[in-house]
């Protein structure tokens, strides 16, 4: 039996090349491909993190400006302080605008549903019912003055009705308002972003 040397050697070379491709080149190339994919993902992550980090100074400035702005409105006051401020404002407005404070009644704060309690709103509303008595123009001015005061409240007119006129007096109105004192809800602890 004679061996065809050229054919046998060509076959051997092909077999070696195939084996090299299958057992050496392909697995290593797959590993390299995986590494390239991981590197691309890592670069994307890094770019995102870097872009976020670059926004820190702008965000710090905006947070500082907002905090300063809100500090003037006393939204960060505790509830008792906010109520005290409202009462003082009402008393001041009453004296200034010549309206009488007939009643201030604390309302009932609505209870949050379990779903809403999971993500509480950033603003807490403390409800009050306020009744003023005075001439029409003074009542309007009093409400505007309450609005311009340094506290923050959402005031809605519940009713305006004629009050019993006193002998010799000008027409008076009883004005009932629903006041929602707005204050910053308790900040969750994880929002503390002061640099350590």
């Amino acid at each position: 039996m004679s061996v065809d040397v050229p054919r046998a050697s060509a076959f051997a070379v092909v077999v070696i090349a195939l084996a090299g491709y299958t057992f050496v080149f392909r697995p290593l190339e797959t590993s390299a491909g995986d590494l390239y994919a991981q590197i691309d993902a890592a670069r994307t992550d890094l770019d995102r993190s870097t872009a976020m980090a670059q926004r820190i100074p702008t965000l710090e400035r905006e947070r500082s400006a907002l905090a300063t702005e809100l500090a003037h409105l006393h939204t960060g006051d505790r509830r008792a302080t906010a109520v005290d401020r409202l009462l003082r404002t009402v008393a001041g407005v009453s004296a200034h605008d010549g309206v009488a404070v007939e009643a201030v009644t604390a309302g009932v704060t609505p209870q949050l549903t379990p779903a809403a309690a999971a993500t509480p709103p950033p603003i807490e509303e403390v409800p009050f019912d306020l009744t003023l008595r005075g001439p029409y123009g003074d009542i309007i001015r009093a409400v505007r003055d309450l609005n311009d005061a340094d506290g923050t409240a959402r005031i809605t007119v519940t009713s305006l009705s004629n009050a019993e006129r006193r002998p010799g007096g000008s027409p008076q109105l009883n004005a009932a308002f629903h006041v929602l004192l707005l204050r910053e809800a308790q900040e969750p602890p994880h929002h503390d972003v002061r640099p350590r």
Partner: protein
Amino acid sequence: MIRFNYLQPPHERWCAGVPAAALAGSLRLPLVLIGLAFLSIAATWTFETHRIGMLEDQLSGLQSRIRTAANDERRARNLMTNVARLRTIRSAVSAAHRDVLVATNTIARIGNDLPPATWLTSVGSTSAGAWTIGGRSTRVEEIGTMLRRVQAIDQHASVRLVSIAATGRSGRILDFVIGWDQQP
């Protein structure tokens, strides 16, 4: 005396057995090709291994930078949450101030636009923005004028006459109620 070492080392034995010059000419080329094939596989393995090593180093460096940048990213995210929260508060405060101004302006305009011989007895509102305006007039046409003027305050609102009823001893005084609903 000459001593012969009959126990030759293996490579000497192999060379002695198959000297290069003794290889048949037809076998040289196939052996070279097979050798080249093995050599190229070895070169490929070396190149790929080296490349993978470099990629692993590069990945390791990137992961280290990501760990460092993650703290900044966390801080930026917390800041964004904080800023969004403060913006919400500011918006709510601004809206509250605006709503009060709108409401007082509306009441003032209703009062200022009263036709002759007409006066208000009550103004009520609901949280949904609906108003009920009660008043009295001596002339029914002035109630129509009142209705038109109230509509003129806000063109987007729907103003409707709810009722007119004669009252008083002689029935000359007319009680009226006007409803005012905000259009959705």
